[in-house]
């Protein structure tokens, strides 16, 4: 693949040189993730829609792309920024090299970048927008990441209808397929619904419980989805994940706020308030639920982040409704929170 000199230009004027694979220029919100493995899962995670994703782990592409392990069939991130891109993969499960996989979807990769310097910049000054282009020219606009509709399904479909387990209606705000796989593997029948569904649509689907998925964007600008989250959770046992968790909080009247540079990585410690041991979790979120704003809602904090004390989990004080800010489905990241799906199914009276 030919590479040309190109730059990542940030809104504050900072310029990071690199080598560009792919053509066209892109703008987006620049975020970094510190997960050391699973670049395939990262680029296909729709929560990164509209974002230029910086991978802090420097050696990327070594094990190619395994379609079985992705979070969506095609890349969802807008662009990828890496230190070292391996062009020839080496792994039994690889079906394609990362460069080709992204080129097929016109997702550019800027490589040879001092990604550590970039992460330090973003950590210090906060998330901002940027542009990848062959020459810097200023005027980087605020990126718009309100892309739930673009990322989510438009039609209702069955992901898995095998077995006699409970039926979970998954409302797709930009879901990761590992959520569906985990539900299926825990014994659920899995029906995926579009984010434009009404509470009535959900009722009619005959689900035993509802899962509100992750997805991209600022939750505070998604009042309609927040109302949907509230309404379905009033009628069905509900699990919210990431954006789904934030929408639930908003639906019950709490507020969200933007984190300075987000939580993105596979090493985030979370402590449960029910006395369970703390866990290392996979995270990818730029917004969080404002703890103070929960006062007066039926939601209470069930889990917190050990580093900054932010809300990582909520529980309804009367109904079988709970949510987590992190990603129990992992992909990429640690597996210990996968038990969340089994707990959810048990609350529906099914599962393993």
């Amino acid at each position: 693949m030919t590479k040309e000199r190109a730059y990542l230009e940030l809104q504050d004027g900072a310029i990071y040189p690199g080598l560009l694979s792919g053509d066209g220029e892109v703008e987006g919100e620049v975020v970094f993730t510190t997960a050391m493995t699973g670049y395939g899962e990262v680029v296909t995670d729709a929560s990164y829609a509209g974002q230029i994703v910086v991978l802090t782990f420097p050696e990327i592409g070594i094990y190619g792309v395994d379609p079985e392990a992705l979070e969506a069939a095609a890349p969802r991130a807008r662009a990828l920024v890496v230190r070292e891109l391996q062009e020839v993969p080496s792994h039994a499960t690889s079906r394609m090299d990362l460069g080709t996989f992204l080129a097929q979807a016109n997702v550019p990769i800027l490589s040879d970048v001092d990604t550590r310097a970039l992460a330090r910049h973003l950590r210090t000054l906060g998330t901002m927008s940027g542009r990848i282009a062959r020459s810097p020219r200023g005027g980087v606009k605020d990126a718009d990441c309100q892309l739930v509709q673009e990322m989510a399904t438009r039609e209702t479909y069955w992901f898995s209808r095998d077995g006699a387990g409970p039926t979970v209606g998954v409302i797709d705000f930009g879901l990761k397929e590992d959520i569906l796989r985990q539900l299926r593997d825990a014994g659920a029948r899995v029906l995926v619904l579009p984010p434009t569904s009404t509470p009535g649509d959900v009722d009619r689907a005959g689900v035993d419980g509802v899962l509100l998925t992750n997805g991209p964007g600022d939750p505070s600008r998604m009042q309609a989805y927040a109302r949907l989250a509230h309404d379905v959770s009033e009628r069905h046992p509900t699990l919210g994940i990431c954006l789904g968790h934030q929408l639930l909080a908003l639906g019950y009247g709490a507020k969200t706020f933007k984190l300075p540079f987000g939580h993105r990585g596979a090493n985030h410690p979370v402590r449960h308030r029910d006395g369970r041991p703390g866990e290392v979790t996979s995270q990818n979120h730029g917004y969080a639920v404002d703890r103070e704003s929960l006062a007066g809602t039926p939601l209470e904090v069930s889990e917190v982040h050990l580093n900054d004390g932010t809300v990582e989990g909520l529980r309804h004080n009367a109904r079988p409704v709970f949510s987590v800010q992190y990603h129990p489905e992992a992909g990429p990241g640690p597996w210990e929170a996968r038990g969340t799906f089994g707990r959810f199914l048990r609350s529906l009276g099914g599962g393993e």
Partner: protein
Amino acid sequence: MPRDLPKKVLVIGSGPIVIGQAAEFDYAGTQACQSLREEGIEVVLVNSNPATIMTDPGVADRVYLEPLRPEYIEKVIEKERPDGLLPTLGGQVGLNLAVQLAELGILEKYGVRLLGTPLAAIREAEDREAFRNLMLRIGEPIPESRTVGSLAEGMAFAKEVGFPLIVRPAYTLGGTGGGIVRDAAELHAVLSRGLSLSPIRQCLVEKSIAGWKEVEYEVMRDAQDQAITVCNMENVDPVGVHTGDSIVVAPSLTLTDRDYQMLRSASLRIIRALGVEGGCNVQFGLHPETGEYRVIEVNPRVSRSSALASKATGYPIAKIAAKLALGFTLDELRNPVTGRTTALFEPALDYVVVKIPRWPFDKFAQADRRLGTQMQATGEVMAIGRTLRAAILKAARSLEVGAHHLHLPSLADLADSDLMTLAEEPDDRRIFALAELLRRGASVDALQAATQIDRHFLREMERIVALEGELRERPGDIELLRRAKRDGFSDRTIGELWRQPEEEVRAARRAAGIVPTYKMVDTCAAEFDAQTPYYYGAYEFEDEAPVPAGSRSVLVLGAGPIRIGQGIEFDCSAVHALQALRDAGRRAIMLNSNPETVSTDWTQSDRLYFEPLAFEDVREVAEREKVEGVLVQFGGQTAINLAEHLAAAGVPILGTSVAGIAAAEDRRQFDAVLEQVGLKRPRGRTVLRSEEALRAAEEVGYPVLVRPSFVLGGRAMEIVHAPEDLADYLERAVSAMPGRPILVDQYLPGLELEVDAVADGEAVLVGGIMEHIERAGVHSGDSIAVYPAQSIDADLEAQVVDATVRLAKALGTKGLLNVQFVSYEGQLYVIEANPRASRTLPYLMKVANVPLAAIATRVALGDSLAAQGIAGGLWPKPGHVGVKCPVFSWAKLREVDATLGPEMKSTGEVLGIDETFSAALLKAFDGAGYHVPQRGRILLTIADRDKDEVLPLARDLYRQGAQILATAGTAEALRDAGVEVEEVPKIGEQSPDLLDRLREGDINLVVNTFTQGRSPVRDGFQIRRTAVEHGIPCVTSLDTARAVMRVMASPRRLEVRALQDYFPQEAPR
């Protein structure tokens, strides 16, 4: 917060350095002591190794330099009455001792609680069968195996699981008689041999997973069942090569997230099932095609791998493990790197770490250097880069094996087929052989097939080789230069490819603004603002290690990888230098490449650069830090060798000048200095041809000490007694290295004395005079040393002090000076002088309580001895005696002759300290693991020329109550002298011969002085090897034998005393 913190905790160290157990436990133990004391706990430390930081009186409240044997530890417990014991930070030795103490009921007797990981968990992890059962119970896959008692059973198992298989005979030492078998015929042969060798006619037949990827996880768990993995590591060499002998990368590079998480989850299940409270290491085999895995083994303690993981990530595993053992939980502990995040998290790396082991085969020309399941490396280097290629090249030039790139010149002459053999049957040169094969056009696929090494690693090596080719074709191309620097190439290598001097490459590079940047190791991939002063170099966009303005900085060079002759002693002194610099108000900067050490603990310096000890890398750091100067005298020969280049580049060398170093190092200059001050040295000649050597030997007189001037994988030094032997030696040496100079020196079998001193140009402080038990001819590092010297009179003492003073002044020494003397027939000769910290320095500092390293550091900074309030002359001798005894790793090194000679072979040392020489000697022997019986059966096999000398000794032993065994010749001589002897058949004479007797465990001690003649070589060699492989002390010098006799004859009384009690006043660090 734990509710019931112990008040006083006993920490057991790991004892002497042996292969498989090195400096990493000093690092772990030192951290553990600090970690306990932070909680207000009084720490009692026992360790027999004086060359450690952990045994400094400032590290623990009570330091016992006593043998690591249950009877001594019990004494310590009786005296100190600790209420807790931390068993998991002293390596396998510390762990085994703790288990023994528990089993002997000693812990219960004195009410000592085992902290952290419970005994049951330790047993379950250590016992092969118990571990196997646990794995089966929790559903973790292990290699299929079966215990068989017949050929038919073995064949049936092979039919079930297929080949290759490993056969392990039961109850044979070190698995003797076993091996890997690839087909039915091999299984038939090996299994029948194995069954006959096994005393219970039983073998374990195990499915071999050789060729699978080998992956390790470092895991921590607290009492509340919270668990994390600190780091994973991937071996470049697949299963089949011991992980300590493997090239390792961290984190894993060829594992997908699913692979990574699958093994991570298994690690957490295992640590939870075991119930470890602290750290633990889990090793896996991962099938490269199917993705299935097997658990290989678990170490329920901190280990070499955890030291590597700590350095690779910045996460202080031992420190946290000690806290967890006290009952603290991960979530309530802070991550000391960021200061704000919790210890319950997993480090994220944004660089690649490469570890390459360092093997001792340059010292052991005759050793079988092939790598297998028995670890043989003595040390390792680590390098950090932003890419694998950069890290590999940095590691290669850190190794000090005659390579400054992925290029070993000695392989250039090998045929392709020989290189391919090196690839298939790996030895220490495999990575260089692979690079050479790639240079000659071998394909990655062919090499993968030959080695099972993942293609990714081979491809990255291929890219390095390809870039060499591009550089060669385009000299002066600046863009190429930039790429090469980002890939880790040194200026020197680029210069060779461009056919330009290194200096010109450097000038072109700097003119183009291509300079290294330094990046922090922060555990979190820049997510948080960390304050760790821990950096590595990379050619990147941003430098994040600004040099504080106006700081007075001094750079201390470390000693690099641990090898025979340059061990932990140097690191110990270097750490003292860092401390002295900080005390003197300087910014102390450390540069080193060895991950096992205390010096590369980032809390020990104001700034740590984890970089190669190569000229370019050191110079870049020295220049950017605008150092006042560089201290080279604490980094062994490695640092000394850099001094001249650094000085020429304008980097100030503190202490002894480059000229002063050269005056001691250069043979001709040193002779001139000796002549000038009127000191003698043994006569010697440098010759090129055999005839000249024979003539030279006649001139200086037999016996002579001969050696090649360059010891590069060639013959070692030898003492030869007659022209025939010399001719034989020359034939071997000259044919190995034609055209190389040979040194022929007069050999003086006198009393060897050694001195460590500090000089400031005017005054000289002689720290102490040590005496070697073995006469000159046995390498000083392999001799038993005694301080204060016992057999010298005031006159000789004065002569030694005077000679040291004169020599130090004439050499212009500013700082440390080590001098070795031999006193022979009333004359004092100088053997050599080293203008640097020596192997004996930590030992002397501890026994004499003289902070020589700190004093020397101050001198190097310009403070005279007088200004430090120190008078010259001999430091006052203490009332007690310290004996330093060498420890060898014979059992680990196949086909190495277990005999002492002029070439150093020991890997470590222990100290015996007591009021009398005999008592200290006994402790030294006990500590070294040479159990000297009060009575017992002693086999004497003595060379003819030693027979006269051995008679009085044998008579004494006999009177002492020992039973003497000997072969015919020796027996006759002894009988004539009135000693009752049991005659034993020589090897092969009749059964049982003397080797059988050794194997039967019938003999307690072997004294063997067979030398390197023709036919005795084989007998002597076999006797010595058989003895060491069966754990029987084997003494090869009559001087050692006399010391043993002394111990046998002396009354046994077992008393222990803390270092702090030997020196009740405030002990300096």
